[in-house]
């Protein structure tokens, strides 16, 4: 009896029966799983900034989609894949994450997003375009966007599963991989395609600007806590899904919270949770390391 009452307090009325919430939970989980898996490789390869750039540049894709009347998902996917291909052609920097060139391209991408959002709000009368594209709006994702999103998530995971071992080896050392006969360049391209898909899914969940948090956060936390690749991936996935679902729950519950009583954004909760987990994880890792000594 007490548990039912507690459940009633935690889960606001209608949480489990609302189809919108169910869609959000499914989409959130899909985005979280893909980002966590791909993110572990991103962090290992030291390419966090590339993932960040793909998210920001993707904002122009989402905005463009609004203008044309497509679902933002397709805009994100198209631009992210194109940007990933461009990065591969130009050559993504491994160690030096903050490069002027990437930053300037990022700025141009944002500028383009500014234009497209302006046009979308004036011509296509999509007044919520900025909020949806930049900071996500998972509760407004239509039911017909869900199947393709899940399909894309599945494709990204299948891609990673297919090149799992060569990807780990080439992330450790391209020379070692090449010596084993791995086509390092091809693996790199396939990996970037997976990153593009992951970022696109995160963008429709929590917005283009914040997508990096889901990609890099859980993976970085897991890397601090676990040692082998399997365990690291498992922890990353668990943390990411937890952050996504808890974020959705809190956003739903916050509908009656002050100040405006129309709910706090999901993206804020998800990012806050990801950051908290990261802080907690690193503290835990430091504490256990100190104890071991």
């Amino acid at each position, binding site marked *: 009896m007490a548990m039912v009452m507690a459940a009633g307090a935690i889960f606001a009325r209608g949480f489990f029966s609302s189809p919108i919430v169910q869609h959000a939970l499914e989409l959130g989980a899909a985005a979280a799983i893909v980002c966590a898996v791909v993110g572990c490789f991103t962090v290992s390869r030291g390419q966090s900034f590339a993932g960040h750039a793909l998210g920001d540049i993707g904002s122009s894709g989402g905005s463009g989609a609004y203008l044309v009347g497509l679902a933002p998902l397709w805009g994100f996917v198209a631009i992210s894949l194109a940007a990933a291909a461009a990065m591969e052609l130009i050559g*993504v920097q491994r160690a030096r994450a903050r490069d*002027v060139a990437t930053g*300037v391209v990022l700025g141009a991408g*944002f500028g383009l997003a500014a234009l497209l959002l302006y046009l979308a709000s004036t011509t296509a009368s999509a007044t919520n375009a900025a*909020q949806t594209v930049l900071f996500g709006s998972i509760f407004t994702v239509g039911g017909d966007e869900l199947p393709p999103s899940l399909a894309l998530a599945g494709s990204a995971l299948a891609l990673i599963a297919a090149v799992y071992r060569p990807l780990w080896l080439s992330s450790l050392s*391209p020379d070692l991989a090449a010596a084993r006969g791995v086509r390092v360049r091809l693996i790199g391209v396939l990996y970037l395609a997976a990153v593009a898909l992951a970022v696109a899914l995160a963008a429709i969940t929590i917005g283009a600007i914040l997508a990096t948090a889901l990609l890099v956060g859980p993976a970085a936390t897991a890397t601090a806590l676990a040692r082998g690749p399997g365990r690291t991936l498992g922890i990353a996935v668990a943390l990411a899904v937890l952050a996504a679902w808890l974020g959705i729950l809190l956003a739903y519950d916050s509908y009656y919270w002050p100040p405006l009583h129309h709910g706090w954004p999901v993206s804020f909760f998800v990012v806050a949770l990801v950051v908290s987990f990261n802080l907690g994880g690193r503290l835990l890792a430091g504490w256990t390391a100190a104890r071991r000594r």
Partner: protein
Amino acid sequence: MDRRAPALMLQPFMLHAWEAAAIAAVVGGAVGFFVVLRGQAFAAHAIPNGAFAGAAAATLASVNVLLGLGAFALVGALGIAALGRRASRDVATALVLVLMLALGALLLGFGSDYASQVYALLFGEVLGVSGTQLVASAALAGAALATLALLYRPLLLCAALSESSQLRPGGRRALELAFLLVLAMATTMTVPVVGATLMFSLMVGPAAAARLLARQPSVALGLSVALALAVAWGAVALAYLTGWPVGFYVGTLAACVYLAGRVRAGEGRLPRLR
């Protein structure tokens, strides 16, 4: 963002826009020169993000947005100075910055008129700069430029030699802190004009191009300011003529200037690194 104003470019409100853009460009170009020199592009990305949350808080509290920007930019600068530069910290720092963006979005959502405020803070709203804001910006700009003038030689020396015997360790840290504070000041006056996401373009694009084109620091500095001014004013003019957002032109023009600089300097292809 209604641009059907029919009058000439020299209407009073447009004068404010030209002046605000000029101030942002001059300070941005000057500070950007040192940002590129010192390789602190990350800080130039990070501090505006943090400032975004402050601006959001200020808007919500109906306080002058410059105060919010300044306060959070200051905290961000101090935080980066304190954390130092370690690779293991980078992911944590990046996460905190994303959190600042999310926090800003949350706070803006508490107020009214969410969409246009988000837009203005992220992409700039040069026409929205008021007279009092302009005076405050000019004052901040003066302070920032005066500080840069004072620190000109130490900054050049510090960048030229990574371990100079003429700079004591304490002096190095003080210099680092002072420069980050200047960056915070520059952020405060630039973000209302070009937005948090585009400040990097205005600051770093022209400066990087200038550095490629000119060897002597003084010449490069002057060129950096000149190019930034060209970008900023060009953006205002084009925005006025076409009715499209200033931010779009800032991002595009800065990228063009940077690309032109690379091509001119003979580094047409972007670097390939493994």
